[in-house]
């Protein structure tokens, strides 16, 4: 697969002569909006998204890549932002749960399905799981239950027992696929 080329120029790391701390100007698209900020090179992407952009859907769970609570989409693929350096986000297209909201604050279909299927209890794992679900749904493919299980295996949920999460993702996948089919049928007529 072709790797995406960075749309903006890369920036260099700068050292503050007083403190000796290193900073980098990180310019990226976050939920569709071009943003830029100076980040400490020691920051994780979770740190940047939470502290600089107040995107608190990005959770700090294990902070060692095991639980998926910090999962976000970068250039179309899911990454645990706790083990991703903020400086690497320069030039990237990043999506978090906040970006799913409609223009009037509406929930997306996958979020509604999580509510309908009781796939949310404490909610701590939910934003991360939903971003994986978004990548799955946007592939436009139909997956078996076992395949979905594997695609969601990078998330720990201590409350739901996973079945309702699988139900919500499967239901939304089927709904989107049948809507697509119906739309294709209409244009064919």
């Amino acid at each position, binding site marked *: *697969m072709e790797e995406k080329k960075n749309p903006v120029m*890369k920036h*260099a790391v700068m050292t503050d002569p007083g403190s000796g701390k290193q900073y980098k100007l990180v310019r990226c698209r976050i939920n569709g909006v071009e943003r830029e900020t100076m980040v400490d*090179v*020691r920051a994780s992407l979770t740190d940047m998204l939470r502290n600089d952009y107040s995107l608190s859907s990005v959770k700090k769970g294990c902070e060692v*890549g095991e639980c998926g609570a910090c999962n976000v989409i970068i250039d179309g693929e899911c990454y645990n932002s706790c*083990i991703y*350096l903020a400086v*690497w986000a320069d030039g990237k297209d990043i999506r978090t749960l906040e970006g799913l909201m409609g223009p009037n604050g509406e929930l997306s279909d996958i979020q509604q399905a999580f509510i309908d299927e009781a796939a949310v209890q404490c909610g701590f794992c939910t934003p991360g799981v939903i971003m994986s679900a978004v990548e799955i749904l946007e592939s436009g493919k139909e997956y078996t239950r076992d395949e979905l299980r594997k695609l969601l295996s*990078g998330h720990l949920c201590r409350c739901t027992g996973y079945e309702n999460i699988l139900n919500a993702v499967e239901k939304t996948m089927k709904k989107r696929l049948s809507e697509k089919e119906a739309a294709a049928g209409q244009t064919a007529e």
Partner: protein
Amino acid sequence: MYDMKALYEAESVQDAVRLLEEHPEAQIIAGGSDVLVQMREGKRAGVELVSIYGLDELRGVKLEEDGTLRIGSLTSFSHITKDPLIQKYINVLGEAVDMVGGPQIRNIGTIGGNTCNGVTSADSASTLHAWDAVIELTGPQGVRLTPIKDFYIKAGKVDLRPAEIQTGILIRKESYEGYAGHYIKYAMRNAMDIATLGCSVNVKLSADKKVFEDVRIAYGVAGPVPMRAVHAEEAGRGLEVTDGNIEKIGDTVLEDVTPRDSWRASKAFREHISKVLCKRALREAVLRAGGAV
């Protein structure tokens, strides 16, 4: 915040080599899924890092003119699995790295990191051993190649000389042409688990599919570093493809493997599954090579 002393971002392979020469104490970070976790654990706290993550020139799989498959060291596991050249020539490598961690780890983890960490349980390592992979290293003196079995020195230590980085993993045409393989990862869970033992085999059968012309058997966690089962391979070469002979080859691996007791499993259990996994993997590889048992 990570406890790091300094970060230097390389802009090219040459720049990475220069940064490593300039900062001899610095460690390389690729995807960081080992490095950053160890930094959190305190093992690598306070270190200087040279980041090569931005070097897109080290991503992707290519077929060179002489038929050699070149895998750029920064290629992520998920991109290896999806790659059409991998699927066509050494699909088993794509299957093996599809068993690493979970989806997010497979997007960040690189095959270079998985081999440079010197870890015996690394899911790509046994398969790369089985296919006689060649490691390409670039350093101040230029480019050098080394067979993967010589790249591993001891647990956690590989043959990376000062200011060198791994730039590619090569699989030569004679190593893959006519071979079919299979990898089995034995772990307690189906995802997010480290292998208790990993076994990767491949076979080349005679034209009538009746004889093992070549057998290659490699393991992870059967010793301090990934290894080949040379005695078992030798025992298998030239044998007829029968169930009895697969049993014989599988039993011979005990002459090669040297697993140890750990909290994951005992030595005795690992010896037992060394045989069982080898036999199962050989049966599947024979089927994939068009033979029957």
